[in-house]
């Protein structure tokens, strides 16, 4: 009797161990299906980098972008006139635009027949092709087929964070001042919602133009009163001849060493040229310590002193605002 009980116990233990083992494997293999609802419209939090958020970064302001030599050379060749060339006017920005700029975003789900979320679509401004995060573990499209500017994205929940990977991106520009991006770029995106606060982190990797991954984060606030402009999935765009000089075949660019904005930030803010031109080490806090001894702050503010647009209201009334007429 005892022996039989022991055999059953051993057998049950073995079965129990198998069950536990299987459960552990399933748990490890299956992403945590968090019940976080991302649906809604989110406004941006005003930030210290509001100027680059709204107007875009200044010409030849590559601070904090870990460029390699190829990326730097390509970025210095870029002319801001490019966006007025008919063939470029309606180009959608790449996936990172969502984190780079300060526009509101809207997130909408689609569902499968059984009610589970099939995809999350993140739309931004009019010049952003919506980013579709597929949650159904679908296979990526053929990389040799046509691509979308915002690529192909698959995601899954890890705890309370939606993590996704974007690939199959078109060639384009990474920033509005012409840092190039290649079709080998990929982006990890983390979206975390804490009640009404949404934190979006993007990590861009591009072996062609970046020496290291470029990490950006942006905070958004849930809003019940979404703006009535922008945020459209469907915003038609037509090319027009904006500038007579930019006719057929004209390609605006700067020859090596001829970019007129190359020294702007060095002269205005005394920032080391290496940092302005996107030296990878300049994106780490230690770099400040390194240059601290040599850095001389400018005597007084002569440029972008009071913010821009509505932000002026919060500026010091005693401050003389010089913002180049913006």
């Amino acid at each position, binding site marked *: 009797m005892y022996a039989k009980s022991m055999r059953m116990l051993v057998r049950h233990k073995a079965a129990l161990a198998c069950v536990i083992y299987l459960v552990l494997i399933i748990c490890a293999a299956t992403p945590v299906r968090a019940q976080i609802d991302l649906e809604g419209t989110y406004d941006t939090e005003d930030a210290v980098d509001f100027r680059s958020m709204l107007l875009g970064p200044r010409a030849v302001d590559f601070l904090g972008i870990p460029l390699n030599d190829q990326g730097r050379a390509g970025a210095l060749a870029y002319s801001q006139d490019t966006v007025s060339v008919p063939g470029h006017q309606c180009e*959608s920005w790449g996936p990172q635009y969502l984190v780079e700029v300060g526009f509101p975003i809207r997130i909408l789900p689609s569902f499968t027949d059984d009610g589970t979320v099939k995809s999350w679509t993140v739309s931004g401004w009019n010049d952003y092709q919506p980013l579709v995060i597929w949650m159904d573990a679908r296979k990526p499209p053929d990389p*040799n087929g046509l691509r979308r500017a915002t690529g192909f994205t698959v995601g899954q929940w890890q705890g309370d964070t939606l993590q996704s990977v974007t690939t199959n991106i078109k060639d384009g520009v990474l920033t509005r001042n012409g840092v190039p991006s290649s079709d080998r770029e990929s982006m990890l995106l983390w979206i975390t919602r804490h009640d009404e606060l949404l934190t979006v982190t993007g990590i861009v990797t591009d072996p062609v133009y970046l020496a290291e991954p470029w990490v950006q984060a942006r905070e958004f606030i849930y809003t019940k009163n979404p703006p009535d402009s922008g945020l459209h999935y469907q915003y038609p765009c037509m090319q027009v001849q904006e500038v007579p000089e930019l006719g057929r075949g004209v390609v605006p660019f700067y020859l090596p060493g001829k970019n007129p904005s190359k020294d702007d930030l060095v002269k205005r803010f005394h920032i080391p040229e290496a940092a302005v031109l996107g030296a990878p080490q300049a994106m780490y806090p230690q770099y400040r310590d390194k240059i601290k001894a040599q850095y001389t702050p400018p005597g007084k503010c002569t440029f972008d002193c009071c913010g821009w647009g509505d932000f002026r209201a919060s500026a010091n009334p005693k401050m003389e605002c010089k913002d180049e007429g913006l």
Partner: protein
Amino acid sequence: MLTALLLAACYGAAAAAAEPMAGVDVVPVRPGIDMVMVHGQNVAVQFGPDGAVVVDTGAPGDSAALLSAIKQVTSEPIRFIINTSASPDRVGGNAEVSVAGQGFGEGEVGFGGGRFVGASNAPIIAQANVLLAMTTTAGAAYSSKAMPTLTYDAGGKGFSLNGDSIEIMHIPDAHSDGDSVVMFRRADVLVSGDIVDMQHFPQIDLAHGGSINGEVAALNQLVDLTVPALPLYWHGGGSVVIPARGRLMQQEEIVQYRDMLTILRDRVQALINQHRSLAQVHAADPTAGYDGRYGAEGGPWSTDQFVAAVYQSLTAAQAHGRGR
């Protein structure tokens, strides 16, 4: 971070699993048109009840793989072959693909069993300079079956098959003096041949009449021939371009390629204007900013070869006082 990297790794594995086997990938372009990639060389196949039209035949030695892929696309016979240039990567499989085909021959008496009855190999259409280059190029030993059989001189040639109008246009002095682009009008698909290489700087065959200014002019012409995916850009419409190598493109990517080539041409021209020698031009690294995307240190078309071709093309044009 670890989970994100694992996610990326899983995705990478999935992407790798989707890679074509044995260097062959068949990419649907539009209904009735596929792009067949064989060891990096693109071939366009238009197919339907009238048979198949094959634009370019890939590199020598790849014919069996190409024909096998075409059989997966359509069971109908190959009716026509079009060569976009005399480059070995465009005409390498001419003989085998033509013999495997079944043209609308002279002995044809009409329809048999609901189908055309062919009596010959598939004819090969090309600009006349392609035939000239294939017969006169030293070291190129093509069989008679590989030679173009329907040539045209200036302008172009057109015909209709499978409900689509197929327009073949001569583009002078770009990759070579025998370049054609092929437009499937109804499908709105354009085959660029060697004028566009999505993976490399374009090959400029100076020995056969190619030129950098002709390349730039050709790209501007391709911009004109194609239609952007506008105004509803998120729908993915517009013209589709099949390049010589690499993935499918839309007009905005032709514009980017045109931009790149214009910038590099003007950089080299600026150095020539400073009386720099070719060695000095190489040392000045005129392709900086584009090497990582399109350059190659070695192989059949290196960055150095490209820069030398641009330099020689521009200095020759300067010597002749023309914009070639």
